């Protein structure tokens, strides 16, 4: 079998690229070694940037963000919560930065409006009362899992194939050209070869090793970012610090929780498979975070986690200083004399659609076809304006909010009972995730339904959920293993923040679940 395009990496970039390729009529395959969003796409802020954060330092990045921000609100309305954002100035920040910030935002086309600090405190009573200035910008909260799922669903509806739990072990290089990938499935003992006219690497930080194996060097610099999740929403808007971007200066509300981040530290490539926040990172985040919102000091911490930004060292600069956070599209035929291989990396969650468009445009040129990109106009599955109404059965409302009209594919006649109380996930939604996303365990289920992502993090519901999932998978004996794996994974996020209310919860979990 031969594809036009094989895309390696099931994060938001790969998913968006698969969608665009499929919509342009290419026979497309998306390969992912684990589940969708296993890497950085599942370990970030969930922030839909207005571009404000980059306005002063990176005009191009800021312009990309605000354009994509507007597009995603339209094409992914069920993934975006239009919270808006504030950039607040504290006394030590001064107001000089703010003046420049507003000017630069406006140059980039970002609607930045200074508001009176008193007005800001009225809008957001939790923010630091000593603020001397505030600017309102069109930031928003976005669910990266749902956005990735929607892109993958749409790619499939346009004919793309998706191969999850298949690791690309090498690129097939024959006659001086990349001709496909060799993959190994999780349950397989031998590899298989899949051929394509072009292979696109969209594997985040893991791209470097894949390219290296084909003899191509991409200078990547893994930049670790740690984040903390708090047990409820302490603010309605995204709260940013109005100063030169630094550590822990963004607080993003997401569904029923708040996420504070992030740090930025260079880490060795070989550590990227096992990322976790350290106690030092947690202390740094909290120290800075309470400057934004003082009550974070006493808000229950749910857990801490970390992801890796795939930063690219610009070509011709070996010292690692010239690092771009912008979009990097590499045509390896042109760059390295290796046809059949393209890399798309760098960029942000917010700009993934644009990255996909640039990649698909390049593919069109290579294939000598002229097909227009339609991803900015056509809404994603679930972004159909279907909102929960009063007449909707109460157990379906949360699912409608998450999946829009896609709920019509869920069978509530068999399984209307709510299993996850925090996020209101029913058995019907679990069955939908099993059928449409090949869910194998509770961590997968979490990514596709938000099960266990709420304030109790599964403490109360996890056994019920495990039994239901094992039943849907047709093997009830799996339930115990599901519970154990899930609790162990959660524990990893709790140990760096195990004091106060989190330690109370730790004792509870340990007593109820470890015996």
């Amino acid at each position: 079998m031969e594809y036009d395009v094989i895309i390696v990496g099931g994060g938001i970039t790969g998913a968006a690229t698969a969608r665009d390729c499929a919509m342009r009529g290419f026979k497309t395959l998306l390969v992912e070694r684990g589940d969708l969003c296993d890497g950085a796409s599942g370990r970030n802020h969930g922030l839909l940037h207005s571009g404000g954060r980059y306005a002063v330092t990176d005009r191009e990045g800021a312009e990309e963000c605000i354009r994509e921000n507007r597009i995603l609100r339209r094409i992914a309305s069920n993934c975006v919560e239009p919270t808006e954002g504030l950039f607040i100035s504290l006394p030590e920040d001064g107001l000089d930065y703010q003046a420049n910030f507003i000017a630069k935002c406006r140059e980039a086309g970002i609607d930045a409006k200074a508001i009176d600090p008193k007005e800001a405190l009225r809008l957001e009573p939790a923010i630091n009362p000593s603020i001397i200035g505030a600017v309102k910008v069109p930031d928003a909260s976005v669910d990266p899992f749902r956005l990735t799922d929607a892109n993958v669903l749409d790619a499939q509806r346009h004919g793309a194939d998706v191969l999850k739990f298949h690791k690309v072990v090498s690129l097939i290089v024959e006659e001086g050209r990349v001709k496909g990938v060799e993959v190994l499935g999780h349950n397989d003992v031998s590899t298989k070869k899949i051929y394509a006219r072009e292979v696109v690497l969209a594997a985040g930080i893991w791209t470097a090793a894949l390219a290296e194996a084909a003899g191509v060097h991409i200078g990547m610099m893994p930049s670790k970012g740690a984040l903390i999740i708090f047990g409820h929403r302490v603010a309605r808007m995204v709260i940013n610090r109005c100063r030169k971007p630094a550590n822990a200066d963004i607080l993003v509300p997401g569904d029923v929780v708040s996420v504070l981040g992030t740090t930025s530290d260079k880490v060795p490539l070989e550590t990227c498979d096992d990322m976790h926040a350290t106690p030092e990172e947690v202390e740094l985040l909290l120290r800075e975070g309470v400057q934004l919102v003082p009550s974070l000091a006493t808000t229950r911490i749910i857990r801490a986690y970390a992801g890796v930004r795939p930063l690219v060292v610009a070509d011709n600069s070996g010292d690692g200083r010239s690092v771009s956070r912008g979009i990097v599209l590499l045509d390896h035929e042109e760059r390295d004399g290796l046809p059949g291989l393209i890399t798309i990396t760098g960029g942000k969650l917010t700009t993934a659609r644009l990255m996909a468009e640039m990649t698909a445009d390049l593919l069109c040129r290579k294939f000598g076809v002229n097909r227009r990109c339609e991803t900015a106009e056509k809404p994603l599955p679930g972004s159909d304006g279907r909102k929960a109404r009063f007449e909707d059965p109460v157990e379906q409302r949360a699912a409608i909010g998450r999946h829009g009209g896609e709920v019509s594919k869920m069978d509530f006649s068999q399984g209307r009972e709510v299993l996850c109380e925090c996020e209101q996930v029913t058995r019907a939604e679990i069955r939908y995730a099993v059928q449409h996303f090949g869910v194998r365990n509770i961590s997968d289920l979490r990514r596709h339904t938000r099960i266990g992502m709420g304030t109790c993090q599964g403490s109360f519901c996890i056994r019920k959920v495990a039994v239901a999932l094992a039943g849907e998978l047709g093997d009830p004996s799996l339930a115990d293993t599901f519970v154990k794996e899930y609790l162990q994974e959660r524990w990893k996020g709790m140990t760096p923040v195990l004091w106060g209310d989190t330690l109370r919860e730790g004792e509870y979990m340990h007593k109820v679940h470890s015996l």
Partner: protein
Amino acid sequence: MRFDAVVIGGGNSGSAAALALVEAGLKVCVVSEGLSLGVAGSAPASIATQQNPPYARLAELSAKGATVLRGDSAVSGNWDGLKLKSVVTRNLADMPLEADFFVLATGKFFSRGLLSDMEKIWEPVFGADVYFTPGRETWSDPDFFAPQPFMKFGVLTDKEGRVLFGGKPAENLYGTGEVLAADSKALDINKLISRYAGK
């Protein structure tokens, strides 16, 4: 209000101690905030609470004449040197509970018998001596299913079960149950009864 004994905490250990004291004829008050997880391994507090021994015992205590202050918690003590005269509860701020002796049975972290921040762990009612290891990275085991070090932390007592303050035992404050550090000597309730019942 004056009692022979005030038991602080109505969970598994507190309710068991209180029941033994009541059955020995002592006038007992139990302060129970109601945050008990019950008996580990049986139904958790969130479901079927009446099936859990401590909840059943609180009802039995009331029936046998003990004063059970439900939904209340001790906030501080009034001391004469190392002798505890009375405890003040949240709901009865102007009516300290006086007694010949007191039993601390407030449990560990979940029931707030022990509080913690990033650096330390303390006992909030009296500020008793608490065993814990320095550095919070030592408090937990990365394996969730392994015995967790934080479950060993707790209030220190002497071999009579008396709570320690700066290494010295209080005269009439005893500790029992999960609030105590692991390897503490179990409180001998019969010894307490023979000591105080005759008075």
